[in-house]
């Protein structure tokens, strides 16, 4: 928000390949040369049939896994040369995650879960992170649930906590893998609306994997992956005018 951030593309992928060793010798390539750029403030959907490589791509972008080849830049920083510790730090600072199955840490309260990314970075709890977490919970409308454990909240509420947690580090990029996949339509709508709100108010970039065409249609950009290749990359008309520099590959 207030911090001066790199103002080039938040994410740049150049010719990303990913293969998995299956069996002894044979390698299966899952991603075949992905080129992709996300600018600050973009709100993009990643769609495609099951098994097309969406989660694989998201894990690579989230620095949870390394590509077999190709260049991956986060905030302009080349990541291929970083060691495990540096990747962990960059991941903690620049990327927020929202997963399908909420994945709150059940031993902690909602507030503590939201504090967690700062806690692991700083090592010890402090008042500032508590306040920031409280503010984020307020933003997602869960102040009353601050001291609830995960099992005391509904799926939609848990996913809202997860979104608040993804925003704790004020990341450049939030990656969401089917964030509404487990929710009923109403909760899905409100979770989606929340992400959109954060995107608009804080210029946070979102990349959202979804199977729901209705939700995908409400994104500014729809990237379609089929069999490990981007087959279409469609920018909504309104946004195209706003961002003339966008040239999808």
């Amino acid at each position: 928000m207030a911090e001066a951030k790199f103002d080039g593309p938040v994410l740049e992928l150049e010719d990303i390949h990913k293969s998995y060793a299956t069996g002894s010798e044979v390698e299966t390539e899952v991603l075949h040369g992905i080129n992709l750029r996300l600018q600050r403030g973009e709100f993009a959907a990643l769609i495609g049939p099951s098994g097309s490589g969406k989660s694989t791509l998201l894990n690579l972008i989230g620095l949870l896994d390394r590509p077999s080849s190709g260049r991956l830049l986060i905030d302009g920083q080349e990541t291929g040369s970083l060691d495990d510790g540096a990747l962990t730090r960059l991941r903690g600072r620049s990327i927020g995650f929202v997963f399908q199955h909420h994945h709150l840490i059940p031993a902690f309260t909602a507030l503590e879960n939201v504090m967690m990314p700062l806690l692991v970075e700083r090592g010890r709890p402090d008042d500032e992170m508590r306040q920031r977490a409280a503010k984020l919970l307020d933003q997602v409308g869960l102040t009353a649930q601050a001291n609830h454990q995960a099992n005391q909240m509904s799926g939609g509420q848990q996913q809202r906590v997860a979104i608040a947690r993804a925003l704790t580090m004020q990341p450049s990029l939030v990656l969401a893998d089917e964030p509404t996949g487990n929710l009923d339509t109403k909760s899905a709508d409100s979770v989606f609306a929340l992400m959109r709100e954060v995107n608009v108010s804080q210029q946070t970039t979102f990349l959202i994997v979804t199977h729901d065409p209705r939700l995908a249609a409400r994104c500014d950009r729809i990237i379609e992956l089929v069999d490990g290749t981007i087959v279409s990359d469609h920018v909504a008309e309104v946004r195209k005018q706003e961002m003339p520099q966008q040239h999808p590959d």
Partner: protein
Amino acid sequence: MYPWLPFEWIAATRFLREGRMQSLLIIVGVGVGVSVIVFMSALLSGLQSNLVRRTLSSQAHVVILPPEEVARPQRDSTLGPILQKQAQRLRSIDQWQKLRGRLAEMPEIAAVSPIASGPAFAVRGNANKSVTLIGIEPDNYNRIIALDEKMVAGRLRLNAGETVIGIELAKDLGASVGDKLRINSSNGTTDTLTITGLFDLGNKGVNARNVYVGLRSAQTLLDLVGGVSSIDLGLRDMYAADAIALRIARETGLQADSWIKTNAQFFTALTSQKISSNVIRFFIGLSVAFGIASVLVVSVVQRSKEIGILRAMGATRGQMLRTFLIQGGIVGLLGSVLGSSLAWVFLALWRALALNPDGTPMFMITVEPELFAISAAGATLVGIFSALIPARRAASLDPVVAIRG
């Protein structure tokens, strides 16, 4: 969340608290193991110190004697027959005054007590008992045997013409404090002494045999004027007796017997007891370690999703490693606290129930606080050590796999 606690500690305690039943069971498991170790150690060390105390109640740590004849070089063949004849007689330690001065200067030696002792007969009325006449300097002797504390009647006073005898001998002779006692030495010298006190050294044989007199009286009675038949030493570290005895023997050419050699059988028993208790301790420790490890391995598997999420949020491998090592340490520490409390209860019960027929305790068990401290430290270390495998597993977990699974 306490502000001063690092993330790893917060996560470790939360995980343990969340895994309630699992944590509780393993802590109880560790506790039972620790309680057995503590109880056994206290019992054994009580038994041991009790036996040692009994053994040493009438023995010096090191006794210096004139050289054994057979040990002397036989090169001078003319001396041979003479020495053999002399063996019948009591022999004195050459220049013992000088030796005493040197011994007193050795830092390892706490007390030096010259002794003139030999066989004699105690006669009172018709009763005639074979005894060992022991001439001592009471102050020095007390530092080794604490005879003054063992007096059950009268006082330890050994001026000329005075003696203290054991309660058994007193019974055998029908004598008590203030009575006269005649001592006939084997070479025909006789003296009549007044009994000033009765002692109980905790050993029937000793109580029936030992007759204490002043050093000078003994020297006269035993025909050892100016000489001593042995020198008793009290050491600062009684378990160093062997080494010190060896050194003295080498330096002086005299015979020096350590109480450890003298009681070799007793020590063999003690050592084998120690070994077997160490074996038991080791295996209890091992099973405790396996218990902790298996519970934590399960916990890592159960929490793999959470670990994956934490790693995705920027938690390092090191943080995950430490989180689980700390859990192991906490389980060990809490288990040892529980175990020590249990052991304390067992010991109290034992004290109340293990009694002699007359109601006195079989032997004293004093539990040193170090035993609890050591077991706490040991159990904590075992806990951390057994957490190594699960913790490394947690640290090396691939977040992608964990989150997907």
